[in-house]
């Protein structure tokens, strides 16, 4: 499923990196620990997190993730937005908590891989 379709289904707000919305999402991963994501996420996955600082973009870029979903209505840092635009990494946001975000994704057929 394309990230743009997921964004529409879940009502996600696009904060940055709209140029990457065409990407095919291969799975999802929920974690707020950066080394966990670096170690265990695979390319093409959508990363669900409450981390909003600049470094999340480097992690997503290095792992070639499909994008980042910021939960709980948290506001991503302006610097992260700037970096995400430059790298073409989509950052999306939702008022939903992690559990519900992941659950909705699963219902759409987005599994772990």
């Amino acid at each position, binding site marked *: 499923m394309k990230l743009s379709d997921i964004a529409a289904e879940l009502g996600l707000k696009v904060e940055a990196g709209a140029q990457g919305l065409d990407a095919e999402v291969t799975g999802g991963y929920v974690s707020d620990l*950066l080394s966990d994501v670096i*170690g265990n996420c695979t390319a093409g996955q959508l990363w669900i997190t409450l981390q909003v600082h600049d470094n999340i*973009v*480097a992690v997503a870029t290095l792992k070639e993730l499909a994008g980042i979903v910021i939960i709980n209505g948290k506001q991503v840092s302006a610097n992260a937005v700037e970096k995400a635009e430059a790298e073409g990494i989509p950052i999306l946001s939702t008022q939903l908590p992690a559990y519900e975000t992941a659950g909705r994704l699963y219902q759409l057929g987005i599994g772990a891989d």
Partner: protein
Amino acid sequence: MPGKALFQKTFTIKKDDFANAGEASVQIKNILKDVGFDSSVIRRVAVASYEAEMNVVMYGGGGNVRLAVNPDNVMLVVEDKGPGIPDVDQAMQEGFSTATDEMREMGFGAGMGLPNIKRNSDDLKIITSPDSGTRLEICIRSSVSGTEEN
């Protein structure tokens, strides 16, 4: 270092610069992409490079990472002049971390960095002391795709 590298470049890593942390690793990844490495090699280098870079930012007080592309491997030499690692065996254990509360709030300090480096490298040497800081020599075997026939 024996042999002559096909390509070499050194990147500076700044102390406590969380805003730009990871940039050196992103640049390294882009270089390897341009050279034409296959994605599995690039991903392993990216993981090792990122974790080593973050440790230099957080614990090493800044330093540098040298990338060397050799005919059959990629070497990362990551150096800092920080306090050193008192007990390397302990530091290598998944879950061990001396990260501050502030670092943990940012999602660092899972104690997974060094194990991630180990898992993604073919050879890892850690040379560390309180006087000279810490030096990681990370070797990831590879071949440049498309140049084998030459």
